[in-house]
C-alpha cells in the first residue's frame, strides 16, 4: 500500500479510524486540533458515520467519549495538555469506572510553549489516574498506537492515554496503513454497576483498578513499543522516551550507538527492563521531552549520582529537547561546538511577535475599550484565551490578565468584590460557551459591578476557525443566566462606529451591575467558509 504523508496528529486520526473508531470528541487547541479536523474532512469517516463534531469544552468531550464507550463502541477524546485540566474530573474518574468499548484519550503537550501558557506533562495525569500511557516516537508509531490502543483499552477495560508533543503532532512523515477494522456493535457493559460511582461501588472499582496495575506493567514488559537494545559500552545506559529517541538516534546516523538503550513508548515503565539497565550500567541518562518524571522516579532519594537528565543539568530543565542538546548531554559535542557557527546576527534580526489580522474586529473593539476606560486608568481588564489575547501586545496594551479558559469573567468578579470597580472582562464567543457561562452565573447571582465584553466572531479564531458552540445563542444564554436584557448590547466593531462604541462602553462601565456588551463581526479568516456563512445567514446574524 502507498504510504500516506501525515502529520503526527493526522496519523493518530487515521490509526483510530482504521482501528474501528466510532467517534471523536474534542475542543480545538493547538497542537491537538488537526486530529479532529482530519476526521471531519475524511470521506471514509463520513461513510463510516464517525462522530466528529466539536464539543463545548474538554470536559463535555471526555464525558461524551465515556458515554460512547459505555455503549460498547470505540471512542477517542482529544485535547491539548491544558485542556486535560478542564477534563480532569471526568478523566480521573473514567479510570475508576473503566471503559467498555475502547477509549483513547489523546493529549497533545506543548514543551517550549509554542502556543500555550505552560508546558505541563500529561504523563503525570496518566500516572495520577493509574492508566496505561502510550507515547509515540514517530508518525508511524502514532498511527500504530491509536490503532492498537483500542485493543489495549478493551483488553483491560480501561481508558488509555496517548501522549504526543507539538513537534510530533505538527511534523509530517510517511505512514503505512493497516487493514481497516470493523466498528464495535452497540453493547451494554457486562457489569451493570461499573459506571455508577457511588462510594461503595467506587471503592470496589478502585480496588479493581489497583489490581489491574500488575497487568499493565506486564503488558508494558511485552510491548513492542518498549524495546531494549543491547550495548557493549556499559559505562552509560540510556532511557529514551517517545520523541527523544529520534533526537538520540540523530546523533548516531553515521556512527554506531554502543550504549545499552531502553526505548520507552508504553507506560507504566517495564520494570524488568528498567532494572536490567540500571544493574548493567554504571550511569544512566534519561531523555524525556517534558517533565523529568522517569528521572525523578529512578533517582528517588538514593542513586543520585547514577541518574542523569534534566534534574542534574545534563539537559535543560525546561523547553523541548533537540538533537544538539542530547549531543551535549552525551558529550558528543561541546557547548562551543553546538553554538560555534553562531554569527552575530542578533542585532539585525528582530522579533516578529504574532498579531491580530489586519482588519480584525477585535482591534476595533479594543480601540474603543481603551478610550472608554481612559477615565479610569489602566489595569482593569481581565482577558481570556483566543486571538483577542494578542491585545496584550503593543500597540493595544489592552488587557491585564490571561490565565486559563474562562478566567476572565470570574477574575473580574473577584476584583470587583475587592473593590476594583468597574472591572472589565474580555472573552470570545467560543471561550464563553467553553467555560465563561458558569462564571457569569456567579456574577449575576451577586449583581457584581462588572462589564463583560463577549467579542463575537462566530468561530474559534485562534486555532483556525472551528465551530463555535455559541453561534447565534449568546444573547439568549446571557438572558437565561439572568443578565438584565437592557444591559445586553450588540454592536458592530468597525472604525466608523468608534464613537458609538465608546459611548455604549462608557455607559455600561458606569452601570453598577452585570452588563454584557457584544461586539459582533465575523473573523476575516472564515469569510470563505461556505457552511459557516450559510448558518450565519440562517440565524440572521448579519
Amino acid at each position: 500500500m502507498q504510504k500516506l504523508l501525515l502529520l503526527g496528529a493526522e496519523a493518530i486520526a487515521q490509526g483510530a479510524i482504521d482501528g474501528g473508531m466510532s467517534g471523536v470528541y474534542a475542543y480545538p487547541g493547538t497542537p491537538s486540533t488537526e486530529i479532529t479536523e482530519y476526521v471531519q474532512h475524511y470521506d471514509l469517516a463520513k461513510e463510516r458515520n464517525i462522530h466528529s463534531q466539536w464539543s463545548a469544552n474538554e470536559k463535555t468531550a471526555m464525558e461524551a467519549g465515556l458515554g460512547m464507550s459505555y455503549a460498547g463502541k470505540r471512542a477517542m477524546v482529544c485535547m491539548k495538555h491544558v485542556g486535560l485540566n478542564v477534563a480532569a474530573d471526568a478523566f480521573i474518574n473514567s479510570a475508576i469506572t473503566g471503559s467498555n468499548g475502547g477509549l483513547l484519550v489523546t493529549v497533545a503537550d506543548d514543551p517550549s510553549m509554542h502556543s500555550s501558557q505552560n508546558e505541563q506533562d500529561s504523563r503525570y495525569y496518566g500516572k495520577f489516574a493509574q492508566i496505561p500511557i502510550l507515547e509515540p516516537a514517530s508518525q508511524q508509531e502514532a498511527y500504530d498506537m491509536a490503532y492498537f490502543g483500542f485493543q489495549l483499552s478493551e483488553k483491560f477495560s480501561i481508558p488509555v492515554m496517548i501522549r504526543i508533543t507539538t513537534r510530533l503532532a505538527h511534523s509530517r512523515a510517511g505512514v503505512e496503513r493497516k487493514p481497516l477494522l470493523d466498528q464495535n456493535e452497540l453493547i451494554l457493559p457486562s457489569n451493570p454497576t461499573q459506571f455508577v460511582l457511588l462510594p461503595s461501588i467506587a471503592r470496589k472499582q478502585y480496588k479493581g483498578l489497583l489490581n489491574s496495575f500488575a497487568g499493565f506493567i506486564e503488558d508494558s514488559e511485552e510491548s513492542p513499543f518498549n524495546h531494549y537494545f543491547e550495548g557493549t559500552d556499559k559505562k552509560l545506559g540510556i532511557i529514551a522516551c517517545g520523541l527523544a529517541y529520534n533526537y538520540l538516534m540523530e546523533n548516531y546516523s553515521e556512527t554506531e550507538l554502543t550504549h545499552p538503550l531502553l526505548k520507552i513508548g508504553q507506560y507504566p515503565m517495564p520494570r524488568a527492563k528498567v532494572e536490567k539497565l540500571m544493574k548493567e550500567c554504571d550511569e544512566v541518562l534519561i531523555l524525556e521531552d517534558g517533565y523529568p518524571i522517569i528521572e525523578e522516579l529512578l533517582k528517588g532519594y538514593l542513586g543520585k549520582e547514577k541518574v542523569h537528565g534534566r534534574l542534574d543539568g545534563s539537559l535543560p530543565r525546561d523547553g523541548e529537547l533537540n538533537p544538539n542538546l542530547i549531543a551535549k548531554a552525551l558529550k558528543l559535542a561541546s557547548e562551543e561546538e553546538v553554538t560555534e557557527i553562531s554569527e552575530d546576527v542578533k542585532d539585525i534580526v528582530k522579533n516578529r511577535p504574532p498579531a491580530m489580522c489586519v482588519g480584525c474586529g477585535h482591534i476595533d473593539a479594543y480601540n474603543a475599550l481603551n478610550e472608554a476606560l481612559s477615565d479610569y486608568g489602566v489595569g482593569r481588564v481581565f482577558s481570556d484565551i483566543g486571538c483577542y489575547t494578542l491585545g496584550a501586545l503593543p500597540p493595544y496594551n489592552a488587557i491585564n490578565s490571561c490565565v486559563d479558559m474562562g478566567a476572565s469573567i470570574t477574575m473580574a468578579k473577584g476584583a470587583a468584590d475587592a473593590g476594583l470597580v468597574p472591572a472589565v472582562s474580555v472573552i470570545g464567543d467560543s471561550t464563553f460557551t467553553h467555560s465563561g457561562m458558569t462564571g457569569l452565573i456567579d456574577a449575576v447571582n451577586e449583581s457584581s459591578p462588572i462589564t463583560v465584553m463577549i467579542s463575537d466572531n462566530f468561530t474559534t479564531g485562534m486555532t483556525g476557525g472551528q465551530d463555535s458552540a455559541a453561534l447565534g445563542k449568546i444573547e439568549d444564554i446571557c438572558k437565561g443566566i439572568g443578565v438584565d436584557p437592557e444591559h445586553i448590547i450588540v454592536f458592530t466593531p468597525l472604525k466608523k462606529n468608534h464613537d458609538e462604541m465608546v459611548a455604549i462602553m462608557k455607559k455600561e462601565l458606569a452601570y453598577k451591575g452585570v452588563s454584557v456588551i457584544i461586539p459582533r463581526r465575523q473573523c476575516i479568516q472564515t469569510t470563505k467558509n461556505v457552511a459557516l456563512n450559510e448558518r450565519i445567514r440562517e440565524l440572521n446574524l448579519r
Partner: protein
Amino acid sequence: MKTDIILAGVGGQGILSIAATIGMSALSNNLHLKQAEVHGMSQRGGAVQSHFRLSSKPIASDLIPKGGCDIILSVEPMESLRYIDFLKKDGWIITNSTPFVNIPNYPDVDEVIAKIKERKNVIILDADKIAKEIGSPRSSNIVALGAATPFIDIPFESFEEAIKLIFKKKGDKIINANIEALRAGRAVADAR
C-alpha cells in the same frame, strides 16, 4: 542523498505550499522525508519556519541539528538570517530580497542583504518582482523555490509534476502560473 532544508518566512507567505511541493516531489522519487511545521499562534503574522529533511535513508529526527542544514530557503530576507546557526559552513542561502515589513523596527534592508552576502553560497533574487513580471504576483514563493531546485537532488520535472498535483483543484490557469513561476526562479539560479 540527504538534503536538509529550512524554509523560512512569515505566516501566510506560502511556506507550506513550498513544503507541499517539495514533499510531493520527494515522494514520487521514493525518498524518505520528515517535515516539521509551525501551526497555531505563531502563524498570526509571526515568524514561521519548517524543517524539511529529505534522504534516501530513514531519517531519525524531525528537527535539523544546528550546523547541519544544507539550504535555507527564505521568502523574505530577514527571516533567512534568523536560522543562520543551523546552516552548514558551505550551505546555500536562497532568499527573496523583498522584505515583509509588519513590525515597526524592521532592520535596514541593505544591512540585512550585506549580512547574507557574507556567506559563501548565496542566491538573492527579487521573487516578488519576477512573479509580477510573469503575471502571477501571488506565486513569489514558488519563484523562490525554483531558485533552490538545482541544490535539491530531485529531477526538475518532479517539481513540475508536484505542482500539477497540488494545484489540481484550482484549475489549469493556477497550475500554469505556478509552473512558470518555478521555471523563472530556476532560470535565475541557472544564470548565476
